[in-house]
């Protein structure tokens, strides 16, 4: 009663008195019972232990290039090697660089590199994200932690790679006498869209791989296939006016990559294959993928330890 009276005369305290404090006994209450519902994610708990996510990402980055002579240099070298390979094979040897228009053939490397940025993120989600639960099972079987962090960290590490790659793209473009398009300011939004897709895939595949180890073998193939149908290494104008073009609407990565190319370098829509409906398809597809990924992940997580 007295508490009530005090509150009436004094302004409400900035921090609610019942707000839990970390070192206060009884601040936490854990209720263990069968989960019901579709997703049932404990956001508060994830927020509380967010540091663990940073630690996972940090560990992955630390460990990844240990005992390699180039070390962290591989972050830079890997996409460059990809770019050189695609430029030589598809650009020069197959003569696709002529599609960039007269006098622009030398821009093929930048054209490829712009697509490699989101593609790397996506490939990491497929490969590292997909295997993340299985490869960390020795930890997950011994201790409880917000398991959503495990595939999230696999994607998170790739975001750091992407930022490094972006700097290289900037240098490369400048070297070729090209300027980033003003649309590049949309980068954070684009990154968000790419993340939505990448996380969705990582959640879905990591959960499926736990249940069906077949995905261990399917994923590399899937990754290759997706790279082709997302037109990373060559321009989508190769398709011409194929009657199968509508199928691209079901590949959310296609729209993401086309938008990246358009926004970063301001290439013509006929070169990037951009069209607003592909972007919308990416957003909708990404959302669906993300939600389905979460649901499948959560359903698997409940009994993860029993089947892994």
């Amino acid at each position, binding site marked *: 009663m007295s508490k009530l009276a005090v509150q009436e005369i004094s302004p409400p305290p900035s921090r609610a008195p019942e707000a839990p404090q970390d070192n206060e006994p*009884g601040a936490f209450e854990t209720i263990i*019972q069968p*989960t019901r519902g579709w997703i049932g994610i404990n956001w508060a708990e994830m927020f509380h*232990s967010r540091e663990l996510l940073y*630690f996972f990402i940090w*560990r992955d980055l630390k460990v990844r290039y240990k005992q390699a002579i180039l070390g962290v240099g591989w972050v830079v070298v890997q996409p460059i090697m990809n770019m050189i390979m695609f430029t030589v094979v598809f650009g020069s040897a197959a003569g696709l660089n002529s599609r960039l228009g007269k006098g622009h053939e030398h821009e093929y490397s930048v054209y490829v590199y712009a697509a490699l940025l989101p593609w790397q993120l996506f490939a990491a989600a497929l490969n590292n994200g997909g295997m993340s639960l299985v490869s960390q099972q020795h930890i997950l079987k011994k201790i409880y932690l917000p398991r959503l962090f495990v595939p999230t960290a696999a994607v998170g590490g790739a975001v750091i790679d992407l930022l490094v790659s972006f700097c290289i793209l900037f240098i490369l473009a400048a070297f070729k006498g090209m300027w980033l398009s003003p649309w590049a300011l949309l980068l954070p939004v684009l990154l968000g869209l790419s993340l939505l897709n990448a996380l969705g895939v990582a959640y879905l595949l990591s959960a499926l791989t736990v249940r069906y180890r077949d995905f261990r073998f399917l994923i590399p193939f899937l990754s290759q296939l997706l790279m082709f149908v997302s037109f990373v290494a060559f321009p989508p104008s190769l398709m011409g006016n194929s009657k199968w073009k509508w199928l691209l609407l079901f590949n959310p990565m296609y729209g993401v990559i086309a938008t990246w190319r358009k926004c970063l370098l301001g290439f013509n829509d006929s070169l990037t294959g951009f069209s607003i409906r592909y972007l919308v398809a990416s957003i909708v597809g990404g959302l669906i993928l993300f939600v389905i990924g979460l649901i499948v992940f959560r359903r698997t997580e409940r009994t993860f330890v029993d089947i892994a």
Partner: protein
Amino acid sequence: MAIITVENLGKAYLLGEKTRRHETFREAVMKLAKSPAQRFRRRFLAAEDHTDAFWAVRDVSFEVQRGEVMGFVGRNGAGKSTLLKLLSRITEPTEGKARLRGRVASLLEVGTGFHPELTGRENIFMNGAILGMKRAEIKRNFDKIVDFAEISEFLDTPVKHYSSGMYVRLAFAVAAHLEPEILVVDEVLAVGDAAFQRKCLGKMKDVAAGEGRTVLFVSHNMQAVSTLTNRCVLLQKGRMLRVGPTPEIINEYLKLVGNASTEEVYTAKPLADKPKITRVELRTSEPHNVQMNGKEMEVHIELTTPVPINGARISFHACNRMQEPVLYFWCHDTEHPMARQPGTYHLVCRIPKMRLFMGDYTLRVHLKEQAGGKEFEMLEGICPFEVVMYGRDREGGWFKNTCTYLEDGDWNVEKVA
């Protein structure tokens, strides 16, 4: 108010899940295609969901007060580990509810999340974070952890270059500096040294009783249970038999284990699909499983297998009345090739001089595949035998519990001044 309340907690495994753990994608697709009607019936029409379920734990209810150290005892397969997994949230229960009021940390293993490529310093942070510590908390305790582990010179060396002793010390050091209100521990605690145990269990025996840490402790080792806990839960076949003060529960448990076998010779029927220990027999110096200290004893084990075993390993412990293992013997395929073809194998372990001190003992026998492989069988509390001393003379006689075993010693006495 109780800090932990557990009500009717249960965990079922579908029998299909147990036998077919790695269902492949192909099988799932086939099943989907083959029997839509069956699936439909099972999903929507089946009255009882868990009819063909195996309950690893069921109807377990108890309360734990703040500052209490609660033990969980029971034979192998009684559901101790499953209960521990449920309470540390590694797996979800099928029914029931548990309410834990306070920060929970579980220690089913030390050094979870240690990465061989990371340095000691980095692993302290990684392991701490996995155990649920905040960065600030780890930083605050960092020096104490390093001191406790005695590895300060090697702090920036990758742990893959550590000796196994250093590795374990570091792992224990991090665990010892956890500051949860509720600690769930497996036998790891019994492995740690006294300083570690004291740190982990917190201020349980301090003046400020009631402010100490609440600990849930699972162990096979009755010695550890009786020294560390004040109350215990006795489990059998997934059910809770009793909750009560530790000495009473241990007595009951020992009766349970004792009842399991009073047979001098253990025998079992061979299985059609799996290897099995079909006979364990002692050849003691005296009749009826009575062994004279210092005399020869033989353990005969018969193994029958319908399939070849890949790197078979047989080992056995002699355990005292508190179920503490006091002797260990092993026989590996690498040293003594065995069971590489189906058949029956007879193993003899000759102990030339049985040095165990007088008392009652039982055997605990393990049959496994090579390291990391399948565990086929674990027999507990079989072939009870008694070690006696009356054949050995000693002025003043022998007293129970003087020691665990007798070693030969040569004395030399001189007058020096």
